[in-house]
């Protein structure tokens, strides 16, 4: 009887704790938005963060994009060949990249490259009292540290996703056209006929913006909320990667259901 009550109490405590954390996270997110004006007035702060979130993620994004596109080219060719429609390779590669793989894979890479870095950095700044020091210098850490990182990462994410897709399509082109010898004209023209700017490309960009906001908000909150110890920061970093990966995939399903249901 007692153990039953205890486990019920355990569930209750977890639920209450979870809801409470959600509330704190929401308030934190609203605070970031409220304090954003100041960071836009001092844009060089955001530029710094675009550098660390975007430029430093370039290599992994470009290389992964190229390889994903090349694999798509190979696998797609093998499958399409059985139906005698190799010319549709461009369509297959570009639609899978622009709609799904570009935004999703780029966001997953971004979460593990830039998101974890953001969490670790903010967590360590908190653990070493840098945030408290800032507060004592009458500088709001949310405005000075958190908001610029938020906007830097949110601006970087769609650009990275677009580069990922573009690299992937080039990779598919390299394998399909240059290596295997699919007709170049058919590759591009079928692609252009099938890919719609608004329906496919803009929706893909919109996805990556949503993922960028989600990943960055999670990373910042985990860092800001991390217990100020070495163990706390390392756990928060792991949680950032896990939570934001799940968030990306879950959001992707919801967004896809809304965007492409008509097809």
């Amino acid at each position, binding site marked *: 009887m007692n153990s039953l009550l205890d486990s019920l109490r355990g569930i209750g405590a977890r639920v209450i704790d979870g809801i409470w954390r959600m509330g704190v996270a929401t308030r934190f997110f609203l605070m970031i938005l409220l304090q954003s004006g100041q960071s836009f007035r001092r844009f060089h702060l955001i530029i710094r963060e675009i550098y660390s979130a975007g430029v430093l993620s370039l290599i992994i994004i470009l290389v992964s994009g190229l390889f994903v596109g090349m694999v798509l080219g190979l696998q797609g060719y093998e499958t399409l060949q059985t139906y005698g429609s190799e010319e549709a390779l461009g369509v297959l590669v570009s639609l899978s990249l622009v709609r799904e793989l570009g935004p999703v894979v780029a966001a997953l890479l971004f979460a593990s490259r830039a998101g974890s870095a953001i969490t670790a950095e903010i967590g360590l*700044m908190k653990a*070493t*009292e*840098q945030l*408290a*020091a800032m507060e004592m*210098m009458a*500088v709001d850490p949310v405005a000075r540290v958190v908001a610029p990182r938020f906007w830097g990462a949110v601006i970087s994410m769609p650009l990275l996703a677009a580069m990922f897709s573009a690299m992937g399509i080039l990779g598919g082109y390299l394998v399909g056209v240059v290596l295997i010898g699919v007709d170049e004209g058919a590759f591009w023209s079928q692609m252009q006929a099938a890919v719609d700017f608004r329906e496919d490309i803009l929706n893909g960009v919109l996805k990556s913006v949503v993922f960028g906001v989600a990943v960055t908000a999670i990373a910042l909150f985990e860092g800001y909320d991390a217990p100020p110890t070495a163990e706390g920061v390392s756990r928060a970093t792991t949680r950032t990667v896990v939570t934001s990966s799940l968030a990306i995939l879950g959001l992707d399903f919801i967004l896809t259901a809304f965007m492409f249901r008509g097809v």
Partner: protein
Amino acid sequence: MSDNLIEIRDLSFAYGKRLVLKDIELSARRGQVVAIMGISGGGKTTLLRLIGGALRPTSGVLKVDGVDMGSLDRESLYQLRRRMGMLFQFGALFTDLSVFDNVAFPLREHTDLPEEMIRDLVLMKLNAVGLRGGADLMPSELSGGMARRVALARAIALEPSLILYDEPFAGLDPISLGVTGNLIRRLTDTLGVTSIVVTHDIQESLRMVDYVYFVSDGVIAAQGTPEQLKASDEPFVHQFVHGEEDGPVPFHYPAPSYAEELELAA
């Protein structure tokens, strides 16, 4: 009364239901170095955070420069903090900025001074702590004592009227410890500021401070000038000043009688 930069009357503070500080009476005059001492976990850091405005008193009056901290909104608190400097335990330098940029940080955040003037001011502050030559180093290249001196330069960048020190001597070798102690004294005298030092390093403190408050179990257990304390025969002060193991502050954590716990008693 206006001679006192800090006025604390009848102050209590509780974390939830746990009373951490009660009935604190404390004042610090301009130009004084005041030490808050006591055993670890006795509430002295809480007291420092109250003075810095990071916490609000549960009851009582806490005035800094005539302003009541209990009723300040965020904006006025930030206004007041521009006249405070704080030295954190391990310096809390911004690890992504160089020594120069660290000291320049409060100037850049709060003033519109041209870059040449900021440069001159920063070099002046760094010179005061003897680290002008290290302006281009990164915090990771500094020793603990040097980092604390840079943090001190940063704390005085805006020429505050109050400087708070949280354990400035913790983890320093004897030479750096003496250097830091002298620096606190000298800066207080030359800048005419008030310094509040939270520490448990009794010997260094008695050498350089003007007045000492002992905080124990949330109350002020003793106070006085270093001379008075050295001569004091109050058991608590005596134990603390001479570093004795047992006394009013027991060696043992409160526990049932030893014999009882080992079931020796019938």
